[in-house]
């Protein structure tokens, strides 16, 4: 049987905002396996970002447990969660979150300097096809390029899991496809488990599995028998 690298056990998340309790997640059981690409698909407010943040150790569940391999993340201290992110998780966000005062290479170096067994920033940037833009500051790069720097930064530490929150959300479809290509290429060559959130249904076709979310629950999980390359996707 395949080993799940990340597993949730009846995870719920309730936000207490003023008088109302918002139930963002209502009992999620989910496993992510080594080397697979998973797309989490759902409308805004379906709870997919909350789930991704909990999986990546940015947030804690209100109830339930999250396991990384055999380790229960739920009881970890803030410091231990930081170490977990530092050693095992790469994040890619909709708005890139690059440090504006650092060049592309330096943004990647930011991570390689603190990682245990990183690839060189040059190699990471080459994998996303940005060898010739290394000395540019974020403000000098296009949106797609910035997102690819963010991907390079996320993968440079050779993470076990890559979590992407709407990585193409701010991009046009052509640019979005180049970003997806970079993600798939990394998954193929490094075997990094990749979870990708989107509300763009077209993107589901590049995944091994598609997890549909609605109203804080997983509504169904679909195995994708006919994966296609990002270049064949359009929206």
């Amino acid at each position, binding site marked *: 049987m395949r080993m799940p690298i990340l597993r949730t056990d009846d995870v719920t998340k309730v936000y207490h905002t003023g008088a109302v309790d918002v139930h963002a997640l209502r009992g999620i059981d989910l496993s992510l396996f080594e080397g697979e690409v998973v797309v989490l698909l759902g409308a805004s407010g379906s709870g997919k970002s909350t789930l991704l943040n909990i999986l990546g150790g*940015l947030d804690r569940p209100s109830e339930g447990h999250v396991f990384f391999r055999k380790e229960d993340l739920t009881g970890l201290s803030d410091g231990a969660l930081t170490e977990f992110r530092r050693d095992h998780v790469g994040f890619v966000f909709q708005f890139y979150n690059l440090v504006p005062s650092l060049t592309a290479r*330096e943004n990647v170096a930011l991570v390689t300097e603190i990682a245990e067994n990183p690839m060189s920033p040059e190699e990471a940037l080459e994998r996303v096809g940005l060898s010739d833009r290394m000395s540019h500051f974020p403000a000098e790069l296009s949106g797609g390029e910035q997102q690819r720097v963010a991907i390079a930064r996320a993968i440079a530490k050779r993470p076990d899991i890559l979590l992407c929150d709407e990585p193409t959300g701010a991009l046009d479809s052509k640019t979005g496809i180049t970003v997806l290509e970079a993600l798939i290429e990394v998954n193929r060559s490094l075997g990094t488990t990749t979870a990708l959130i989107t509300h763009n249904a077209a993107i589901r076709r590049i995944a091994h599995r598609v997890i549909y979310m609605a109203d804080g629950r997983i509504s169904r999980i679909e195995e994708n028998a006919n994966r296609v390359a990002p270049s064949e996707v359009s929206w």
Partner: protein
Amino acid sequence: MRALDLKLLRDLRHIWAQSLAIALVLACGIMVMMLASGTQRSLNETRAVYYERHRFADVFSSLTRAPKQVLDEIARIDGVKRVEGRVVFTALLDLENMTEPASARVISLPASGGAILNVPLIRHGRLPEALQQDEVAISEPFAEANELRPGDTFRAILNGRKRELVVTGIVLSPEYIYTIGAGALMPDDRHFGLIWMRETAAAPVKDLEGAFNDLTLSLSRDANEAAVIDAVDRILAPYGGTGAYGRDRQVSNVFIEGELKQLGALATVQPPIFLVVSAFLVNMVLGRLVALDRAQIGLFKAVGYSTRTIALHYLKMTAGIGILGVLIGWGFGWWLGREMTEMYTEFFRFPWLLYRPGPGPLVISGILGMATVIIGALRAVRASVRLAPSVAMSPPAPPRFQRGWADSLGEMLSLRQTTMMIVRSIIRWPGRAAVTIFGVSGSVAVLVVSFFTFDAIDLIMQELFDETNRQDVTLTLSGNLNDSAVIDAGNLPGVLRAEGIYAIPIRLVNGTRTRLVTLQARAPGAALTQILDPEGHPITPSTAGVDLPEELARRLGVAPGDSLRLDLLSPPRETWQVPVASVFRQSLGQDAYLDRETLFHWLRQTPQVNMIHLAIDQNRLADLQAKVQETPAIAGFTLWEDVRAEFVDTLTESLVSMSLIFATLGMLITVGVIYNAARIQLAERAHELASLRVLGFRRSEVSYVLVVEQMVLTVFAIPLGWLAGYGFALLMAEGFSTDVVTIPVVVTQRTFALAALIVIGSALGAVLFVRRRLDRIDIVSALKQKE
């Protein structure tokens, strides 16, 4: 309430901590201004009222002996209002339970009635009755120090005989607000007092019946003081007049003048630092606020608010900060000013305390305070006004970074990326970095100036007690004696070495500049007292001319080699033209020096002494004191150990509290500047720093970016602050130097180091305080905002 005003209140509440930090820095400036000029004004008024009510004289002169008829002649001088001739002399006292000798200045009161001038203020009891030979009134400080009350008795040696005197009253005098004995450096109320007795009792002691040896007079409003002094000198010359002088040379008044001058210096040197720093802070914080409000400004303009209204909105916000600062400054300034005036009242022996800072300092400091913040706000307000609504509503362009020298430097030193973030941030916003550096260096400067006082005092004390005055005891003789007195002194119990000095009053004249000083004649071999050249090496008194202290030479406008006029103010009252032989270092006092033999050669007299310095065996001090008490030829006994202790006591009390206040103020600047800079930094970079946390950076590593940037700027600021501090020390030394004290400009490494350490500590404290907010940043929500 109007919507815009509601926004104002909420914005102020939102930035309350930053506003408070600015207000506190501003308040420091206001406070120092209030404190110094309020105290100055209060002291001035108290003194003026005291002088007025108790008829403090305008002109003073001592002389050997003149018949009372001379007073009529003096009264006829144009401009003279009232004249009083008195008998004044020094007497040794024999106090119960006191082994060491004490002395008093005896001042005569008219045979009946009260004094004409310098009217004593009766605190307890009454003045001596007319014709009562043994009744005296004594000065309050002396009475307090020796626990004497009306009705008590004590013994004095008058005319070689011990006499029992009855205290009838305790008084204060405008002439002796600051009381200092002959040859003493500091007031010593236990061993030196003032005694008022009826003329009928005092005159016979000095064979002055029908005569006087001390003259005071007051002037009419339009009198020409210089002309009166000249006329008095002419009239008194045959009677041994030692030179009349005005209030500007009267010892007690000179000390108060000095203190007032120092307060003035305080009021002008320090506050500008605080005001300028707070202007910059307002600029920084408001600039940031306008940047944040960008979209709102666009919106206000779009819906039809006028540019004027919007500008006024931000000016009101600034005014809020300004009012807070001014109120805090006024409050503390008022309180501290009162405390300080009270301290002065006790130190100087004013009979009452008039704390009247008056509206002047309030108004001036208030206006300056408000002007400071408003000037500080102008740039930010102008930026808000200039924004076109359409531009304002779209987000600002992201900051542009460029590759430059810093990158090569970073690569060369292989700096970590977090370090590069710091370097680029400083280079990208040089103005902001400059404000921080400027503010912090101001803080260092304030601290350097505050601690500099200790350095100066240390140096003065070292010079005074270790280098120039190495005698244990100084005896002041009651008259001029020949050299055998020195041999006699050498034979007093416990005396190891005795050196005679001859000190006479002289007037030094160079063109229009004149100074009344004491000329000290010393033997070449004198080792107990020394004079030092500007480098600190001992010099032997010149045989070719006079040696002058630096400050006196400067005031007279002479240098070694120049010649100046010397008027002897005691017999034989000649005028000589003498060369200036050398200039030496002296912080306290303004005596001129000359070789003894040369002086007496010029005087065509056999050498005499009127002061003897002693080195003694401390174990036999009591024997010596006992012997001195019964030696009428000795009028004063100064134990240098006491002088030193008194000096330390008086100075440390006022200086330590003063320096503590200034050290606190200095720290406040750093805290205000760094706190604001760090808050702005944090606000602008919250997103970036949250990203670092997502990437797996530990809190300490993220804090590094925030903390180290501020600390780097702090460290950059320190040398600048040292330099500025040294400059301010120069100004302060100039402002604090009086006729009596020359403040040396010396700033020790200890002072520089201490200032730097305190500033680094305060900066670290402030930035770590802000750093706590990093822990509260919600990573997830910080990331959801678009940059």
